């Protein structure tokens, strides 16, 4: 699907807005400033999305599927050390070892994900005047490639390409905390474009 320049601009603005809101939700929980990098967005072959990840790096992944008037998948990936810091802030110094899937740790991360994903989807819903319902987030601690492949599989049922939005989550100048991804198949993208075109710019 070819996007017009104006549509691309609006999409970028939309995703940027969602990610900014998600970052500020995270910032509130972390009690320190979190910003986002200049987002990348494009229509990518599924195989290339996979190549972009450091596949074997151990990370904490949060996954949620958006439904309602738009369909998309959000994936937040935290570098393990930073997820550990996050859990320490939320639960106190005693906890924070992420390697073991302790129930408390996972639920703290899930809660963080919930806040971020709600902030993201609310921003989109408000701007477009549509209903966006995020699923309860799933949390996994493992290789980045292994956590993302499920989403790629799901997109692979629909086609060979996906609309892909990516931004880095940054704390302090330069320190990468993690990534936020939004994935959409072509059909979901077309539906979203219809909604975008109806919004007054």
């Amino acid at each position: 699907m070819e996007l017009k320049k104006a549509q691309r601009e609006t999409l970028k603005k939309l995703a940027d807005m969602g990610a900014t809101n998600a970052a500020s939700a995270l910032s509130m929980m972390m009690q320190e400033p979190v910003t986002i990098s200049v987002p990348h967005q494009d229509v990518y072959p599924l195989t290339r999305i996979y190549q972009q990840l450091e596949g074997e790096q151990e990370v904490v992944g949060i996954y949620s599927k958006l439904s309602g008037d738009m369909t998309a998948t959000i994936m937040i990936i935290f570098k393990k050390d930073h997820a550990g810091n996050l859990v320490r802030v939320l639960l106190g110094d005693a906890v924070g070892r992420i390697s073991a899937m302790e129930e408390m740790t996972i639920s703290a991360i899930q809660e963080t994900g919930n806040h971020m994903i709600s902030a993201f989807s609310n921003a989109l819903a408000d701007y477009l005047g549509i209903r966006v319902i995020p699923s309860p987030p799933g949390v996994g601690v493992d290789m980045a490639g292994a956590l993302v492949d499920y989403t790629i599989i799901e997109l692979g049922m629909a086609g060979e390409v996906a609309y892909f939005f990516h931004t880095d989550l940054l704390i302090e100048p330069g320190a990468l905390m993690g990534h936020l991804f939004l994935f959409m198949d072509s059909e979901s993208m077309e539906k979203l474009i219809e909604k975008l075109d109806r919004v007054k710019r």
Partner: protein
Amino acid sequence: METIKVGIADYRVSRDPVNIVTVGLGSCVGIALYDPVSKVGALIHIMLPRSTDSNSRENKAKFADTAIPLVLEEMERLGARRENIVAKLAGGAKMFSIMTTEQIKHIGERNVIAAAETLKAEGVRIASMETGGSVGRTMELDTSSGRVRVRSVGAGVKEI
């Protein structure tokens, strides 16, 4: 020895001594095929069980049922013999407890079953499997020896 990477929905075949690696298998399945006589080896990284599972079927390497026959033929063209080829499987995990749609809930398990069924239909024996559970895996085939190593977070490296 040279290391060759295999991406998702992709495969590599070699008759030279190389390491063929695929990184971060979650619900996807890695299929290592090896003929110890001709030393022709292959590694496939499939993402879906059957070509009927997708609306988009151009890439045969995406599906267990179309990738395996394709790769076996390519191995035979490089001198492998079907009756010598053995298979080893890794992956097919369930990475998240929350899986939204029914269609995809058991995708890892279905990938493993489809790979096993296709191998059986093609007359290839499965020598070993490291599948299921909820761990990501990296799989490596050494075509000089046919050894397959599987690496996972927590469990380290294991030869299968």
